[in-house]
């Protein structure tokens, strides 16, 4: 009896066909930039024109979309599609896009929006659409004073970048640099500040004294830099909002290579005396000074890790200039570079995973990155002369300056700012009015 029951059950089991789910592994895709359409923003009837200095901007909706497009193009991650191919007009698309039209031109994402301008206010709404899935991904509105319209465009770029890549953007940021004019042998150097795309340039010093190595504080309001006052190089602190500047500590010697701690409370710098230089920190509020390294060699270019627990710096204590890492109290010093050539200007990534550096080998200058333990060295770009890398706030792009070779009379010389992303393929010139050097990238202005 039991056997019959089992037999019947067995028949039931084998009689129903059961197919396992077919699995297919997709391990390749294309790495082309994402095709994105940025529709000009619709201007609401009754909106006023915007004054930008002497100019009057009439088509503000188009201008905002252009700034967003330039940001996307420069990032190397997006491919903004040409506006000539757009089928839908801004006045309709901002209400509800006809996705078939956007799929036709191979767009995968779409940015639409509208803008209204009154006397003292600009209101910008934008929406990001997933064209393939026919759904909205993000929708936000911003209100500000009309002269801030470029910042609104940068903030929109950041929001779209974050939504489509999963990491924070870097468009609503500023860059401080040294503006250079005049012949190579007699350069006038002024501190200058601009938006990350090169717009809104402002000069912070007059050019009477030589200025070098400006660095932003994490809170963006303060800048520390090196200036030669009465032929003595000193580290200064400048408040961008008030314009007040002061000497950082009254050292009986030369101070240089300043940089802020991640919390913005301390400045770390080199102090040189009698041919030896060591690393010091100074608390900005209490003016308390602490000696971090104590070695007979030259220790310089210190940079904190984002958690503030470690410091990387370069030193010639091994005979050649190499990069070292130590704890923030100066203990546990460890050399991390062992490759051929000289290593300098180490800068810890805001993500904490990488250290950017300048490498000199056989007369060539390289900008590269490596892990914090010195492994995985990758050289991103090579040139005749380039140095001083500075990270974008999301740790994906580096800005640095590059000088060209000049003849014996100093002709043909130029110094320009360049950016390169971590892949090493997306290298771009950043247009500046004058020659430029020593750039430093601020953190995001709107967090």
């Amino acid at each position, binding site marked *: 009896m039991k056997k*019959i029951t089992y037999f019947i059950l067995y028949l039931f089991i084998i009689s129903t066909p059961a197919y396992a789910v*077919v699995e*297919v592994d*997709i391990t390749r895709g294309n790495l082309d930039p994402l095709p994105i359409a940025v529709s000009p923003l619709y201007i609401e009837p009754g909106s006023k024109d915007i004054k930008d200095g002497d100019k009057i901007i009439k088509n503000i909706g188009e201008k905002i979309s252009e700034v967003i497009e330039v940001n996307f193009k420069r990032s190397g991650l997006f491919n903004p599609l040409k506006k000539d191919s757009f089928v839908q007009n801004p006045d309709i698309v901002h209400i509800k896009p006809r996705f078939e039209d956007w799929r036709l031109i191979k767009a995968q994402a779409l940015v639409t929006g509208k803008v209204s301008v009154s006397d003292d206010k600009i209101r910008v709404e934008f929406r990001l659409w997933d064209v393939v899935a026919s759904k909205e991904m993000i929708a936000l509105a911003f209100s500000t004073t009309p002269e801030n319209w470029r910042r609104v465009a940068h903030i929109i770029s950041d929001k779209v970048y974050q939504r489509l890549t999963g990491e924070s953007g870097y468009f609503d940021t500023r860059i401080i640099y040294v503006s250079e004019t005049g012949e190579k042998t007699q350069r006038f150097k002024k501190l200058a500040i601009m938006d990350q795309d090169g717009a809104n340039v402002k000069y912070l010093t007059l050019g009477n004294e030589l200025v070098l190595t400006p660095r932003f504080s994490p809170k963006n309001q303060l800048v520390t830099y090196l200036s030669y006052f009465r032929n003595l190089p000193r580290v200064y602190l400048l408040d961008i909002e008030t314009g007040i500047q002061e000497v950082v500590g009254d050292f009986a010697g030369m101070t240089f290579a300043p940089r802020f701690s991640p919390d913005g409370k301390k400045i770390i710098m080199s102090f040189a005396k009698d041919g030896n230089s060591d690393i010091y920190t100074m608390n900005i509020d209490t003016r308390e000074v602490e000696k971090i390294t104590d070695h007979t060699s030259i220790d310089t270019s210190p940079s904190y890790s984002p958690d503030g627990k470690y410091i990387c710096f370069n030193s010639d204590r091994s005979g050649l200039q190499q990069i070292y890492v130590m704890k923030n109290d100066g203990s546990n010093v460890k050399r991390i570079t062992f490759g051929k050539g000289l290593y300098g200007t180490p800068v810890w990534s805001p993500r904490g995973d990488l250290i950017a550096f300048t490498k000199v080998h056989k007369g060539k200058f390289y900008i590269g990155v490596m892990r914090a333990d010195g492994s995985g060295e990758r050289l991103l770009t090579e040139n005749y002369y380039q140095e001083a890398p500075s990270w974008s706030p999301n740790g994906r792009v580096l800005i640095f300056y590059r000088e060209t070779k000049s003849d014996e009379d100093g002709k043909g010389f130029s110094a320009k700012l360049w950016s390169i992303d971590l892949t090493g393929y997306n290298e771009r010139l950043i247009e500046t009015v004058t020659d430029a050097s020593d750039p430093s990238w601020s953190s995001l202005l709107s967090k």
Partner: protein
Amino acid sequence: MKKSLFLSFIFHSIMIIFTALTLPFMMRSPIDLPPILSVELIQITDKTSIPFAAKATEILEKIKKEEEEKRLVSQQAPPSEKKKEKPDRIPMPEDLDKKKKEIVKKKQNPKETKEQIRQASEFEKKELFDPNQVAALIDKSKEETAETIKKNEKLTQSSDKNSFTNALTLSQEDALKAQIFGCWSLPLGLPYQENLLVRIKLRLKPDGTVLRSEVLDHARMNLPGQAFYKVLAESALRAVRICQPLRVPPTGYEKWKDLQLNFDANEMLKG
């Protein structure tokens, strides 16, 4: 009483067996049979016939030659537009010295043609062959063999997985993969040190269009620090939507109507 009980038991048993044997067949939908392959039966002789084998080699060579000629003709067709491959990262001077000293040129000028560093074609490779480097080549071949074995193992596992269901042949699977490869735009800002596998389960229509799609590890999207996963999953879903109708076999719908695509970006980003 006993007799009627016994008869009742017998009849009931017969009914149950009959139902069991017939009903499932009635419930089951008609079997989707794969296309019939005609196989010619050949009689095998007791002894190996050498002259026949020689003749066969000749024929095989002839066929091979014909195929080669056909291939060469097809190669003369105008080349399709292909994007330039991105150059490798900047090599160190000592690496360059090892190759040729003249290579040192600017990376930023794409107009300059680098004759020395262009990739050697199959024909040039033969000329570049250096007998002195045989030892090095042997060592390399060992590595390559190991890699091939590894790959084969992987392939066997994967084919096992599918041969169990027998839903897709290897060529059908390859065709499907190739289709999706072209549709999947990888988000370029993905972190390198994370698990970048997204599993998408699909219910397909017989024509290959997607009826339903579902991200299997959906909960991971909302975890802190996993924002990139949402982006990755969206890109995978987008790829499926762009690609549809998927290239599925014309028969055997029941077997492949539920399809799971494992999008793995690790391999591409880590190389």
